[in-house]
């Protein structure tokens, strides 16, 4: 950084952007105004590089209550209940300080949920780090997980699911995405538009300090260099204790109908919260910074306006209700202050001790940031190097690759991206709230029971929901369009496996620098894929988040569109599990599953190049197949369901055996399908692809012989394949081509390999 740099450049604004601000203001902005513009015109707040392409996502559906534009989206789930949900990233803060970065990420997404009037009932996380052979990655993963647990556990919201993957493109730019869900009576949802000229603006919760100053514009939009030193003073510290009081206080205020509107303070603090409330309500606001409860002496007006101190909320209150609102804040021992009023000026006016220190038209601040058109350019060749992973599992996979199916399978089961995530998810409270009927590893999606309480406090049954979060980066790197479709389909498959009807989708688009043409192309293709998949599933996008500039001198991250889906489940007692708990069940495979080794976990272990294209998909057929599975699960026909993901069919079958019951499997029908798709390949390649190939749409199911045979008739067009029978302690998978040494593994051995690999690896 040169000392001669103009302030607006240091704050992340371009010269043309600055000129536009001067034009809109009719003069040069002062320091306070410039700080506020730089935040509101940052990528994080203005979506200036993504707004145009996000417009194509479908945002309507029969269950939709609140779509993009509010703090969180919401869908109806029956019985007069709504589920609000959203996913958000905290990637850059977590790369600097993983514990606090991840903790405050959870705190922030929870505030988005109770800001719309919903009681938070669950958190999920989606995490990406570099390879576990890197000490830094082990440290980041450990601390991020600890931070998420610290916040979620302490506030009493269960963390019921998530995902964690290790890939070298995330070495310098880890991803920490958190999703939260909240429950509310439909009529209690509240919007954030400020209303009622003359009403009071009340700030409550934690006091305001210097933490996070510059965080939004610097931390969220700049590429991370090797030296993070300059960003250090901006670390925000989370206080889940304060937030637990804040949740109760907000819900009490809303329950008593005391608020005109409510908004959380997140990135860009008071600046973004207040100006967005003003913009949505088409009003103006007067704000007196000297009335803000401070934690530190001598803070400048601009510091107060941009501080990212956590655990704060802003509400609009009519004069008659003010005393009652403040007394509820007192009950919960929260700081509070009337910091301003709603005006009809359509200006944000900032005062310090009565003196006007900032005066900006609301539209200029919130709506007039230029929106850029991306300049996408498809790369002529793969821009990511072949994956290289240094682990025992990778060496074992290479040794077994040619002729030993069992060796490949055991290597996959012990690999960093497939072995049990227990080491991490045990650090989350997954049961508090008494709603979790399917915990991590008990089913393909988490299931929550939405009981209500009768007058004497006892639970009365209600509807249930299923929820899952997914986002393979490697497959999107291989093919942004089809890879993204795969992410949506995988998430939807998880929901279908527990009998869920998908109601709404949220997403977080984690990408590199969109000003680079290849990244722009990834982003454009990915959003198209999400659009097409959502349309095929008739699934509205209820909201989401975009995290760009995830790149370093080593290059961009894998493009990682993370999707979260909420589904409705009529009866939590009729939900398929994901292990063979019973003997003598018939095992089959449903779905238009066309496995390929390209970009698979096995390809990664042996160091294969990433392809530039994945197989085409028949989206209508995929949608139909998921509906069929869902209905059969709901009917109790399918008792066990597991979607085929990393590690292919063989891995899915091995994971189905984790319950202790094995199976005898013949994969001939799938080998036949593969050989039709790849007529030129050798028999051993057909067998390997059938066993370990990946792709969307494959679900391993088990049920009674009669039930599944009946299903197979109606599902013939869905590509139903009969595979075998459950029973005994052993999983045997025979290879009809006779070219690979067959699999014959005791369930206990599968448990041992799969269960212990990760904790051994991270503690070594």
């Amino acid at each position, binding site marked *: 950084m040169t000392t001669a740099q103009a302030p607006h450049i240091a704050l992340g604004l371009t010269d043309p952007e600055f000129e536009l601000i001067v034009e809109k203001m009719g003069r040069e902005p002062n320091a306070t105004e410039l700080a506020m513009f730089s935040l509101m015109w940052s990528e994080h707040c203005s979506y200036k590089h993504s707004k145009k392409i996000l417009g194509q996502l479908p945002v309507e559906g029969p269950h939709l209550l609140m779509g993009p534009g509010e703090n969180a989206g919401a869908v109806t789930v029956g019985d007069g209940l709504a589920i609000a949900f959203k996913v958000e990233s905290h990637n850059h803060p977590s790369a600097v300080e993983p514990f606090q970065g991840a903790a405050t990420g959870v705190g922030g997404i929870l505030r988005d949920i109770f800001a719309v009037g919903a009681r938070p009932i669950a958190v999920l996380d989606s995490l990406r780090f570099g390879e576990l052979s890197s000490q830094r990655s082990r440290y980041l993963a450990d601390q991020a997980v600890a931070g998420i647990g610290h916040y979620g556990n302490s506030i009493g919201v269960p963390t019921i699911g998530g995902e964690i993957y290790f890939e070298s493109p995330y070495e310098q730019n880890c991803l920490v995405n958190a999703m939260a869900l909240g429950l509310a009576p439909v009529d209690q949802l509240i919007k954030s538009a400020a209303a009622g000229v003359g009403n009071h603006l009340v700030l409550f919760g934690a006091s305001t300090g210097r933490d996070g100053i510059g965080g939004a514009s610097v931390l969220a939009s700049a590429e991370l260099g090797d030296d993070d030193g300059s960003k250090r003073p901006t*670390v925000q510290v989370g206080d889940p204790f304060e937030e637990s009081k804040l949740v109760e206080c907000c819900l009490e205020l809303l329950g008593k109908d005391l608020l005109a509107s409510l908004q959380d303070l997140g990135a860009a603090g008071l600046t973004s919260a207040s100006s967005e409330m003003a913009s949505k309500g088409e009003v103006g606001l007067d704000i007196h910074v000297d009335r803000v409860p401070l934690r530190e002496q001598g803070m400048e007006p601009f510091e107060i306006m941009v501080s990212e101190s956590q655990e704060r909320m802003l509400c609009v209150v009519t004069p008659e209700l003010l005393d009652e609102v403040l007394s509820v804040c007192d009950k919960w021992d929260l700081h509070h202050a009337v910091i301003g009023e709603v005006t009809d000026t359509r200006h944000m006016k900032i005062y310090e001790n009565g003196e006007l220190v900032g005066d900006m038209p609301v539209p200029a601040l919130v709506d007039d940031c230029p929106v850029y058109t991306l300049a996408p350019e498809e790369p002529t060749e793969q821009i990511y190097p072949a994956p290289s992973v240094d682990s025992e599992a990778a060496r074992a996979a290479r040794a077994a690759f040619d002729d030993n199916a069992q060796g490949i399978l055991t290597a996959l089961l012990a690999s960093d991206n497939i072995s049990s995530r227990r080491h991490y998810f045990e650090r989350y409270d997954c049961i508090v709230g008494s709603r979790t009927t399917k915990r991590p590893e008990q089913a393909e999606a988490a299931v929550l029971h939405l009981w209500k309480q009768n007058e004497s406090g006892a639970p009365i049954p209600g509807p249930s929901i299923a929820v899952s979060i997914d986002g393979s980066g490697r497959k999107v790197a291989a093919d942004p369009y089809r890879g993204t479709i795969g992410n949506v389909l995988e998430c939807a498959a998880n929901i279908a496996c527990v009998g869920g009807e998908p109601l709404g989708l949220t997403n977080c688009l984690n990408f590199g620098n969109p000003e680079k043409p290849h990244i722009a192309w990834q982003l454009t293709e990915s959003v198209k894929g999400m659009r097409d998949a959502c349309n095929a599933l008739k699934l509205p996008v209820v909201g989401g988040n975009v995290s760009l500039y995830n790149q370093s001198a080593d290059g961009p991250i894998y493009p990682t569109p993370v999707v979260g889906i909420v589904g409705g489940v009529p009866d939590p007692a009729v939900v398929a599990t994901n292990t063979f708990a019973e003997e003598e069940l018939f095992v089959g495979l449903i779905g238009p599953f066309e496995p390929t080794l390209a970009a698979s976990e096995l390809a990664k272990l042996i160091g294969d190049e990433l392809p530039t294209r994945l197989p085409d998909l028949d989206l209508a057929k995929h949608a139909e197949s998921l509906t069929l599975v869902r209905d059969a699960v709901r009917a109790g026909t399918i008792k066990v369901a597991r979607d085929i993901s990393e590690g292919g069919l063989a891995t899915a079958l091995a994971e189905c055996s984790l319950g202790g019951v094995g199976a005898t499997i013949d994969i001939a029908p799938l080998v036949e399908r593969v050989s039709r798709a790849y007529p030129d390949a050798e028999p051993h390649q057909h067998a390997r692809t059938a066993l370990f190939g990946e792709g969307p749409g494959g679900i391993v199911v088990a049920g009674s012989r009669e039930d599944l045979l009946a299903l197979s008739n109606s599902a013939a067009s869905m590509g139903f394949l009969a595979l075998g029978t459950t029973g005994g302690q052993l999983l045997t998978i025979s290879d009809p081509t006779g070219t690979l040494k067959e699999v014959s593994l005791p369930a206990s051995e599968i448990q041992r390999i799969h269960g212990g690999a990760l904790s051994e690896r991270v503690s070594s």
Partner: protein
Amino acid sequence: MAVKATVLIRPKEGILDPQGEAVENALPALGFSGVSHVHVGRLVELEIEDPSQLESMCEKLLANPLIEDYEVVTASA
């Protein structure tokens, strides 16, 4: 000969210290008055052969320099 060292680790000034705040708010109810500026930190005590390593040990492991200050006090064992 090993040296006994005490390291005092405190939340950095300006960084939120929720523990200190919570303790301070709780004290009056416990019958203690006239207490202010409460901060809760950590204390690490150890014996070390080469005390010149202490500084870098604090930076790398004992404290989190992003959010904590530390002070090393040594006394021979």
